[in-house]
């Protein structure tokens, strides 16, 4: 068994992955932001082309690594490599984007191994109460039993709750002998 010491931040471009890592990271998070050449897809100035990285330093010289995958789908072949050894993944969803429902399902399917062990947490932002209920129903219809939070990636407290859920999930996974 490989020690799981990283947390993934997954989701489409513009979902808030880079911001979430910067919010949680102890050091200045490493980012690979460049000028966004695909403003039709999402109108923001910069986007991540390789990987975002941050870390949470623990007391005993151990670190929890925070990886943000590049959200564009043409980077999909590298996703399983990054997913190895992950405590879990926080799927960031920006409900103000078009096709946010399809994107959510796309990323859950792309990280199927994590979804099977309930190790994906859906953290939605810019979401109305109606959209929140719609998303819960959508996950339910697709047979996914995943935690769903409303999370602003700029706020520590909401991300800490997300991390605590992933911790609880892995603790139980280890304690139940399959």
């Amino acid at each position, binding site marked *: *068994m490989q020690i*799981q010491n990283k947390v993934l931040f997954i989701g489409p471009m513009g979902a808030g992955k880079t911001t979430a890592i910067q919010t949680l990271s102890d050091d200045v998070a490493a980012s690979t932001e460049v000028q966004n050449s695909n403003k039709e897809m999402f109108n923001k100035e910069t986007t991540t082309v390789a990987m975002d990285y941050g870390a949470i330093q623990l*007391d005993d010289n151990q670190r929890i690594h925070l990886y943000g995958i590049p959200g564009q789908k043409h980077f999909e072949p590298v996703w399983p490599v990054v997913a190895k050894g992950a405590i879990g993944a926080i799927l960031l969803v920006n409900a103000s984007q078009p096709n946010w429902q399809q994107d959510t399902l796309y990323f859950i399917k792309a990280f199927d191994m994590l979804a099977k062990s309930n190790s994906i947490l859906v953290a939605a932002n810019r979401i109305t109460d109606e959209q929140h209920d719609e998303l819960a129903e959508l996950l339910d219809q697709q047979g996914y039993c995943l935690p769903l939070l409303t999370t602003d990636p700029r706020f520590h407290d909401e991300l800490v709750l997300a991390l*605590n859920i992933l911790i609880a999930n892995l*603790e139980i996974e280890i304690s139940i*002998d399959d």
Partner: protein
Amino acid sequence: MALILGTYGFSPYERKLIQEQLKVIDSKVACQWMYAGETTEAALLLAKKPCHKGTQAVQVRLYKPVDKNSESRQTHYIDAEWPLRIFGLLDIVQQTEKIINNNSAAQSGTATTNETAALIKKLTALKSGNAIYQLNNQLLAALTEENRRTFIYSRLPVSALGDALRKNKHIEIGNAVDNATQLPHKYPLIALLWDLELEADLPASDLSQWEQRRYSLGQWPDFKWLRTGDNVLRLSAAFTKRPLSIQEAATLLKIEPGAVIRFLKACTTVGLRITDTRIRGAQARLAASPNEQQGKQLSLLSSLRKRLKMAFS
């Protein structure tokens, strides 16, 4: 009443001894005691503690927090001879039962088990346009319906409203006043019901009613509104992963069976999908003790949780 006994700092041999001794004294004590092994979350915690004479002391701790917003707990210490002999353990268990009984009596100012159940039933039946008043006609909360969900407007945050309702035995239901939606706190009714269920005392009959079946959760609780905590998160993870009986979940999480039942009752009250099946097969296989790698993983997770609590609280 079912209660958990835990140990801290005991060797595997000493743990086995405690377990055997507990079986022997079972008929001589009033409550149903279950041994949870090494844990810090138990009604009665036996912890070895060096004393000035070189002997050991046993610490007895009540599980129920004095104030749910703080980590403070009612703690009683009882010195005992070490090694702990069977009559010594019997004495400690009986003293603990006495402390727990006295504590329950001291809390007679708050709602009883049945009163809390009746309160929850009353609140569940509330509709949009209703309001809750105290005896002096002071508005506690008003209800409205928005997006097919019943919301509460109140002067009080959800936990304080729960406390106020538990303490006020005479609340009146009336019509909401026009400006009720200007009250500062707004949350769905389920958030209040969830809080009340998690804090409610359980009648002894509840344990037998729940213990013959395995339960699984079809959805995670909506933590946008519902109060969390380590046990709530781990209970949610456990019951969404596989069907578990009350006892299996209590053993897995090293908590009292009552806490598991309270959680499942809260899930039922807020409308989460729970399926249950009669226990047929053998007990769900719980990892006996983690291997070295698993131990390292659990330790890493524990460090991370501690770090998150310290840095971001």
